[in-house]
């Protein structure tokens, strides 16, 4: 029996445990990433993090994206899924298809689409505002420090909304129709049915997607930021992973980059654990 587990255990150790341990180990060294000189510096890299305002900004941006994108995507995803499942909408398969398409596209393609939409002169957004004589609302969407992170957040929501909607729809479709009929006979409104029936019965699915949201806030934001803004202007759209990447591979501070990696690991792990604890409940049988 144990022999059967050996190949998987070896693969897991080589590709998961060893690299993770190495990230922790490398965070205690200064190393350029290329030279043979590696110097043990203990917790110095973490001490430097405390004085690094750019790291603090990247951390703040990551939390902002985590909260805003999760709340908006989850709210819209649940709302759309409930409408698509419960209401007899004409052409709902078309809506589902259209909303799901962004998830099939590469994130870099999405970044290119949104960069073109946000273009200051010829972009769809500013062009539409000009057409509607709303010139005052025009923005430098990817060049204004106050706006840029939310421009990225909109792209993140657009990319993932269809995916979460389909996930919620699949679990909502599994709820027996009789339960809704019985609650309707008892006088429950559609809103009441949603909160008292639908939400509890898709709770396990919601729990899973919450973990997905944490992972995508950390991972997907990196790709979009890298492709759309490069962290700019002046680092105002930097997120933790893009800052780690910059330090480790552009700034030749590999050890410092790994220290940021340790913080990302600890943060993601802790938030996922807390979400899991906060949402744990006895699964409902139906």
């Amino acid at each position, binding site marked *: 029996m144990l022999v059967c587990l050996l190949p998987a255990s070896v693969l897991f150790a080589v590709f998961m445990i060893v690299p993770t341990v190495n990230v922790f180990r490398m965070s205690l060294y200064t190393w350029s990433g290329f030279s043979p000189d590696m110097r043990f510096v203990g917790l110095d890299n973490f001490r430097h993090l405390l004085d690094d305002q750019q790291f603090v900004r990247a951390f703040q941006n990551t939390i902002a994206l985590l909260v805003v994108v999760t*709340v908006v995507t989850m709210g819209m995803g649940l709302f759309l899924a409930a409408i698509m499942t419960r209401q007899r909408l004409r052409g709902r398969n078309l809506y589902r298809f259209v909303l799901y398409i962004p998830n099939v596209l590469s994130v870099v393609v999405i970044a290119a689409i949104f960069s073109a939409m946000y273009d200051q002169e010829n972009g769809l957004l500013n062009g539409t505002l000009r057409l509607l004589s709303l010139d005052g609302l025009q923005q430098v969407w990817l060049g204004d420090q106050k706006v840029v992170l939310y421009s990225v957040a909109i792209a993140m929501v657009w990319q993932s909304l269809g995916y979460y909607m389909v996930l919620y729809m699949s679990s909502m479709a599994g709820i027996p129709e009789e339960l809704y009929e019985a609650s309707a006979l008892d006088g429950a409104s559609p809103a009441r049915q949603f909160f008292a029936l639908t939400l509890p019965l898709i709770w396990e699915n919601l729990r899973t997607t919450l973990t997905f949201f944490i992972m995508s806030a950390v991972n997907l934001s990196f790709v979009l930021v890298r492709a759309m803004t490069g962290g700019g202007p002046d680092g105002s759209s930097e997120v933790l992973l893009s800052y780690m990447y910059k330090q480790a591979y552009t700034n030749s501070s590999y050890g410092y980059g790994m220290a940021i990696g340790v913080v990302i690991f600890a943060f993601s792990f802790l938030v996922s654990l807390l979400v899991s604890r906060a949402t744990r409940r006895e699964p409902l049988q139906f």
Partner: protein
Amino acid sequence: MPNMKESTRTALLVAVRTLVAAACVTLVVTARTTVGWGNLLVMLAALAGLLALLASYNRRFR
């Protein structure tokens, strides 16, 4: 409040929870505008607030 009707109590609880959630999200958005450890801690506290809210909503279903 022992004399309060059950439905009123539920409505009040939902309203309070919605307000607290909105306040936490607003706190995250406003605290981001200034860079600093203090503001980062405020954002983390708001995130913890949202998680606490989720836990309090979930408690009666455990």
